[in-house]
């Protein structure tokens, strides 16, 4: 049972002096939250969504501090700044103060042990925070990790931190399936795939050591084509990631795969990682319908042959190409009991399903019990695109990308197409 929750029409939030309290007088701008949003999210009964902030452009990942400051990383500078912080001083659910800082763009952002961590597509930085979780010196971040591979494809360096002083960084493969010539019909896969020595996996570095490069870190997990959504699960004390599965089975091997099979079969997989995990890319893809690891056609596969006996099994698998860009394990008390410990996944929305209809542009939920999925996934928040006619990457009004949990248990969602930060709360129908 779902009902359409209209995002309330929000009056222009006048710039008022008390909103200066957190960020200093010279750098505050009023947040323009004028009018209702054109995209009305569809949520389960009892949930409500508001546009917490708008007009950010490409808002990638997001994190919320224990006192409610919201930090957002942008992949395109807005007014010359690549990171923004928001606060809701009057606690009406809408940001009323913001400040931008930093001149680099990127995706990753996280707060841990008194620091704000943020990544560009090459490096990882950190900023020391004061006791109010404000950045002390916005102009002088420390470089934690530097010189990571960026060959333009799968370049986002998504990050997550554990509770033992380590930071995990995605280094995506600059390739679809490690062909001799990327995405080129008739070109077969390189064996072994040389990309895997420096990309196509998760690397682990120290969270408090400056200027680390590849040699200072360890390859924590390999065989991962690209990961944007990842989260440290405090219940299992392990890293969970969402892999972006391979593209173009039909385009590259039209004799072996129909457009429908190409759109559906290569799953977007959730993996629980440990030191040494190998998830099998580029040699295999996971067919979520057969629940089998299939040999990729670039390596002699034909849609029937299985492979990857030593490759890790996914803990959950979703239809192809939906683009899982955000992962969050819910630990709050605001939402009903079934959501506790479960996983929210922001599916950015597909492009590689064409000419079949596109899919995604929603937030999914997977219930968990004892650290494992305890039921099927379901759509939690839908209609970011703004209706069927907008279910295309170039037309979608909004595309969910990052997820974060507020101190009150609310769920924040960043959108890198429309530049909106959504705040989703549970009111129980009140």
């Amino acid at each position, binding site marked *: 049972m779902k009902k359409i929750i209209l995002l309330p029409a929000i009056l222009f939030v006048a710039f008022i002096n008390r909103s200066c309290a957190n960020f200093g007088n010279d750098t505050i701008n009023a947040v323009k939250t004028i009018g209702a949003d054109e995209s009305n999210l569809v949520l389960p009964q009892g949930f409500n969504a508001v546009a917490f902030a708008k007009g950010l452009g490409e808002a990638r990942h997001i994190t919320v501090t224990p006192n409610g400051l919201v930090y957002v990383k942008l992949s395109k500078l807005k007014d010359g700044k690549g990171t923004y912080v928001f606060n809701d001083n009057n606690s009406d659910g809408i940001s009323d103060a913001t400040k931008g800082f930093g001149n680099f763009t990127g995706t990753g952002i996280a707060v841990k042990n008194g620091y704000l961590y943020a990544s560009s597509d090459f490096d990882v930085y950190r900023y020391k925070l004061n006791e109010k979780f404000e950045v002390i010196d916005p102009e002088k971040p420390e470089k934690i990790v530097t010189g990571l591979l960026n*060959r333009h494809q799968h370049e986002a360096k998504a990050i997550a931190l554990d509770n033992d002083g380590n930071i995990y960084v995605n280094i995506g493969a600059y390739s679809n399936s490690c062909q001799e*010539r*990327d995405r*080129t019909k008739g070109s077969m896969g390189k064996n072994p795939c040389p990309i895997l020595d420096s990309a196509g996996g998760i690397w682990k570095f120290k969270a408090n050591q400056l200027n680390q490069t590849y040699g200072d870190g360890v390859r924590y997990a390999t065989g991962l084509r690209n990961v944007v959504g990842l989260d440290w699960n405090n219940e299992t004390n392990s890293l969970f990631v969402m892999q972006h599965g391979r593209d173009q089975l039909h*385009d590259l091997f039209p004799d072996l795969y129909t457009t429908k099979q190409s759109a559906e079969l290569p799953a977007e997989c959730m993996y629980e990682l440990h030191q040494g995990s190998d998830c099998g890319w580029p040699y295999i893809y996971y067919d979520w319908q057969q629940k089998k690891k299939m040999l990729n056609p670039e390596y002699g596969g034909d849609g029937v042959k299985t492979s990857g006996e030593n490759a890790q099994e996914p803990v959950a698998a979703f239809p192809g190409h939906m683009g899982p860009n955000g992962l969050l394990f819910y630990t709050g008390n605001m939402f009903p009991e079934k959501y506790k410990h479960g996983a929210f996944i922001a599916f950015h929305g597909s*492009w590689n399903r064409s*000419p079949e209809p596109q899919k995604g542009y929603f937030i999914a939920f997977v219930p968990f019990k004892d650290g494992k999925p305890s039921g099927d996934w379901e759509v939690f928040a839908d209609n970011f695109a703004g209706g069927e006619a907008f279910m295309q990457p*170039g037309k979608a009004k909004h595309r969910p990308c990052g997820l974060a949990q507020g101190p009150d248990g609310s769920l924040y969602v960043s959108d890198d197409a429309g530049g909106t930060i959504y705040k989703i709360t549970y009111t129980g129908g009140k």
Partner: protein
Amino acid sequence: MKKTISVLVVSTFCYIVFAQTVSKDQMQRGKTVFETYCLTCHQEDGTGVPKLNPPLIKTSYVTGDKRKIITWVLSGTTEKIEIDGEYYSNNMPPQNYLKDQEIADVLTYIRNSFGNKSSAISATDVKNVRATMK
């Protein structure tokens, strides 16, 4: 007055030449090539994929110099490229396995679809550019 007449004559001439070169048949053949080799990345309506695959709607690459767009299709790219102020990061595979006529057809189709209106490209145009790349 004389000037106006000559402008009219020249534009009519251009219109006739243009109308003759962008034939219905070529558009149909181009559409078939587009659907087979281009559609997945650039999307059915040419809107592309933000940040990854460029749109084909009124961009300087598509509607500009013939030689540039022919070269592009033949050689592909592994660079992150800027088109009209936006960056696109996916690799484009070289399409040099297509025949001269197929490339001429698909480029003519793209240059006259999705709201574009640019001159047709001939197999000879493609042949000439291909020759300079060997």
